[in-house]
């Protein structure tokens, strides 16, 4: 079934920017606006790809390497996460660690590229980003550990088909993963992707200085990151038994992701952004949810 996993990757590559569109549409409809078209993220990426670039005199090759490494890292991550019950191309025991750490590499380069500009705004974003992601990492791994103990496997591609959603432990893990998902993708209540008040932002402020193809890479890789981390949640919630109807289950997963995007849109429309001091608290709450789930599984 090699073809199936390749098609799954293809789906991710093509459909990932759509999630942004769905989120924005949902928010718009909550606010009673028409909102940007569903395909706006695609338009943005294509527009940026066509442009030329502007670089700050302060920056060095690190700044240019940042977006390239980010995109490469998230593409590798895409090859690790299974979809629709179909094993991912790069599935092996411990792939969840490679996933977590390759996203760590992506963050590392985003952060140093931000610091390369010498701008204090970007430094501010970078400083927050590293803190929050350091706190989110344990929540992610303990949560996955809980499901791993329940299913007795350590490979995402084997965990996903075996996890059955309707047990309290899994609900807790999903809640924790949702918080991690929002945090890692810099969504409300952690970060507001819309404001242009740099002081309040985390992720957006780090990429202020990128332009042209570099910025297109960044936009595309954050869409892909949304897709990849979303698949983690969807793979647990939606039944995805390994088997012959993989195309059907892949479609169900895509549907699930779109649904997740709607949920994110609803969260963003109904919640306010948290105060910075409260953000670690929420992430640690996610960690304790994961730990609670693990304790429940362990009994």
């Amino acid at each position: 079934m090699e073809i199936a996993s390749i098609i799954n990757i293809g789906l991710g590559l093509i459909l990932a920017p759509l999630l942004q569109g769905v989120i924005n549409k949902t928010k718009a409809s909550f606010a009673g606006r028409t909102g940007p078209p569903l395909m706006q993220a695609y338009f943005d990426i294509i527009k940026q790809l066509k442009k030329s670039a502007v670089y700050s005199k302060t920056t060095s090759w690190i700044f240019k390497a940042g977006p390239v490494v980010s995109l490469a890292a998230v593409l590798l991550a895409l090859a690790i996460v299974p979809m629709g019950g179909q094993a991912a191309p790069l599935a092996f025991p411990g792939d969840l660690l490679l996933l977590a750490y390759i996203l760590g590499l992506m963050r590392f380069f985003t952060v140093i590229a931000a610091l390369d500009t010498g701008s204090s705004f970007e430094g501010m974003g970078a400083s927050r980003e590293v803190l929050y992601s350091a706190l989110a990492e344990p929540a992610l791994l303990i949560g996955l550990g809980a499901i791993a103990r329940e299913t007795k496997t350590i490979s995402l591609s084997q965990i996903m088909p075996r996890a059955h959603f309707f047990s309290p432990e899994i609900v807790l893990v999903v809640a924790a993963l949702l918080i991690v998902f929002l945090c890692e993708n810099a969504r409300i209540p952690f970060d507001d992707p819309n404001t242009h008040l740099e002081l309040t932002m985390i992720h957006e402020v780090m990429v202020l200085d990128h332009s042209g193809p570099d910025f297109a890479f960044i936009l595309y890789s954050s869409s892909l990151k949304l897709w990849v981390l979303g698949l983690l949640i969807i793979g647990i919630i939606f039944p995805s038994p390994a088997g012959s109807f993989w195309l059907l289950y892949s479609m169900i997963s895509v549907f699930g992701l779109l649904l997740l995007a709607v949920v994110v849109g609803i969260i963003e429309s109904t919640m306010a952004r948290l105060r910075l001091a409260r953000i670690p608290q929420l992430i640690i709450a996610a960690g304790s949810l994961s730990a609670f789930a693990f304790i429940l599984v362990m009994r």
Partner: protein
Amino acid sequence: MSFILIGLSVIIAGGLLALIFCRNSQLSTLFGVGATLVGCLMAIIPVLKSIFYGNAETIHLVWDMPYGSFFLKLDPLSAFFILPIFVLSMMAAVYGKEYLMAYRDEKWLGISWFFFNLLVVSMAMVCLANNTILFLIAWEIMALSSFFLVAFEYEKNDVRKASWIYMVASYLGTACLLPMFLILGAGSHSLDFDVFSKSLSPSMAGICFILALVGFGTKAGIMPFHVWLPIAHPAAPSPVSALMSGVMIKTGIYGLVRILSFLGAPPLWWGWLLVAIGIVSGVFGVLYALAQHDLKRLLAYHSVENIGIIVTGLGVGVIGWSANMPVVAALGFAGGLLHVVNHALFKGLLFLGAGSVFHNTHTLKIDHLGGLVKKMPFTALSFLIGAIAISGLPPLNGFISEFVIYMASFQGAIEMSPNAAIFLISAIAGLALIGGLAAACFTKAFGIVFLGEPRGSAARNARESGFWMIIPMMILSIVCIVIGLTGPFVIRMMSPVTGVILGSIHSGEIQTASNWLGYITMGSLVFIVILAAIAGLRHLLLSGRPVENVLTWDCGYAAPTAQMQYTASSFAQPVLELFKFFLRTKNNITISDAYFPSASKFESHTPDIGSDGIYKPIIRTTTNFFRQLKIVQEGRIHLYVLYLVVTLLILLFWNMR
């Protein structure tokens, strides 16, 4: 095996020659470096053989020492610790040639080279010795020679103080080792390691374990015995710091592991104690590192952190051993020990990088540096590689060893009974937190030192270091990358090493890990291919388009200065604020409240809870106690004679009873 002896003799001889010609810096450097290179290259041959073929060799020479014997044993475990010692020593020596030359007008370099060579030999001897007396002598020579190296700039008050603290800590550690060896050797006629009984009663074994943990842990720098480490390592010249932080503290780990192999199958509590200590050392090490303003001090605290990771790995291994799960046991030890080598490589690399920065800017204050990536491209590149490796990120070597530890923990966490699984999942959580914070710390260190605009004249006028300083850093960087990409092969070498500890070779389990790492290698290679493709695409897209160079966008502010950049202190502030409950960072802020803003001042300082909270009170109490005893110290000779007489009489009566 004889190659090792010859090699070590060459190093010693070179050191002596350097000492003899100590007035001539050129000549003594030549002898010091040359002998280290030649000796290490010779001695490395049997070491490699032992690792690859997994065999043990011994040399037993007659030695006129009660209970002592010149008994050397090179088994895979020793070989595994000696290998990084030789590699890093060669690199540090080559690097030191140029680095120390800067001091040739002020110092007699021959003396330093003598101690340097002595340190190399004594470290190797510690790992080779198979007899308690020989081991302790090598151990003390190692401590002494590194003491003199730390005291290199003895005319500075700080340095003198640092070297004394190091000396005291070192002896306190050894004080725990003596009773431990006595317990181990009790009941046999010699103190050779081979005769140590494996049938100690559980309580005795427990005492031995605790003593080994404190004694060797002091050398290794686990919390809370780490206090000397962040003081002594920055005080030494950079090549020495690299050697101390990279390999010397690992002899503590070696001792601990060796003792574990004597004690036989451990109880569970050893495991969770090790995991707990490992996580505490790791998390606090990295938090303190984040709070530092001095680059080398930051790196020294990272040694505490990495020792924490290593000890966590050993703890996971011990838990697996006690629960009879060979996968967890073998992989826990394999991961922990592999991290020993990896840490030696990237920490050595980072210290050399920091030395290169200091060599050219004469400051290590992170907040005074900046923008060095343009001035010192090679140093920056290798420091970046070291930073990625130490943060445990793929595709470099740090990830490989952390992955193996993680996998051991995961295996245990999903299969073991709750009381063991809870510690393994804590190990996972701890490692994840440590990894995240380490990335935070090294984005700070690299980002503030090498990126942005120079924050002072020191950084503005910096130049790249010379060829002989660049070469070792480049070699170490390449080794980091190579190990990162050849994980499956590297891990297979661990099979005889863990065999020495566990008593039986678990090649099957190691092979499983090797298969997993095969996928990691595949993933890394795919990653590199994708990276190249995207870079190519970017180049293609930008070719022929006008690329502009302008000021950094600062929200319309037109004249940013270098002082407006984010500093290391501000970068770390949110983390420190979050953990202020433990760190107790003190901030001194002076803001003028005049109508027109004038100079304000901000200062932050994070005291080490280990020294301020634990050691200072103890030392104060002890000092006070002994101050009371000063009454007997009258300073009159006849009083002292009286003491002698009284003591003698008491002893006499005691015997006569």
